């Protein structure tokens, strides 16, 4: 494989997204998952009831926060899953397909999040 010094490589961007997503996920996801997946079904909180949750989402800053919370960790997961499939299952011949599926999934998730949060009433 030849070195291509003048070509703009995409790996640095993917790694930056992976790192940013990892930071967001590390700091924020545990508590949010606890609230959503454990505290809410056990009735430990009222903030995730319909009225309260809708009230939270009225604030643009909350929507922006949720966009970041959903988008960057998806890119983090996409990057890691892609490499795990590549290394773990040794399916290198599907390399392009896996990369497109993983990062494409993250892009799709980001678009969905953006659309839902932009149009929320």
């Amino acid at each position, binding site marked *: 494989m030849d070195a291509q010094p003048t070509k703009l490589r995409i790996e640095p961007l993917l790694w930056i997204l992976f790192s940013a997503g990892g930071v967001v996920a590390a*700091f924020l996801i545990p508590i949010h998952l606890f609230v*959503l997946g454990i505290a*809410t079904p056990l009735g430990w*909180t009222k903030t995730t009831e319909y009225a309260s*949750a809708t009230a939270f989402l009225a604030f643009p800053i909350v929507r922006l926060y949720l966009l970041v919370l*959903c988008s960057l960790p998806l890119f983090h997961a996409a990057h890691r*899953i892609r490499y795990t499939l590549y290394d*773990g299952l040794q399916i290198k011949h599907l390399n392009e397909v896996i990369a497109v599926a993983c990062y494409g999934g993250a892009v799709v998730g980001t678009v969905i999040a953006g659309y839902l949060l932009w149009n*929320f009433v």
Partner: protein
Amino acid sequence: MKSAAATPPYTLNHPRWYRKRVSTYWWLQRWEYLRFVLREISSVFIAIFVVETLFQIYALSRGPESYSVFLSVLKNPFVFALNIISFLFVVFHSITWFNLSARAMSIRVGGKKVPGFLISGPNFVAWFVISAVIAWLLLRA
């Protein structure tokens, strides 16, 4: 473009050298490799959280009946068990992430390298503080 004498980027197959094929289950053969794969798999549970959050926002946008369906799905035993497991994995992600990022940074103060725990320590503290703030905001009975 390649010359006839171009060297390949990896060692050619030599008929008398023995090359062991790497097993598909290489990650089960050593405890360290399994721990690594589990660490990577934690990203799947991160993705699961994002998907759940997107469903939550979608359900909210469709109205109270739709949202109460979402809430009752959260109470489903299988979903609840999945979320418990996901919670453990995302915590595992956070712990390993702060330890890894400390090792990935080389910070020198006064010419000496700052030891890893002085970098990961503040990260853990910040993690607890941020989580406490969010918990205070969102955990109200």
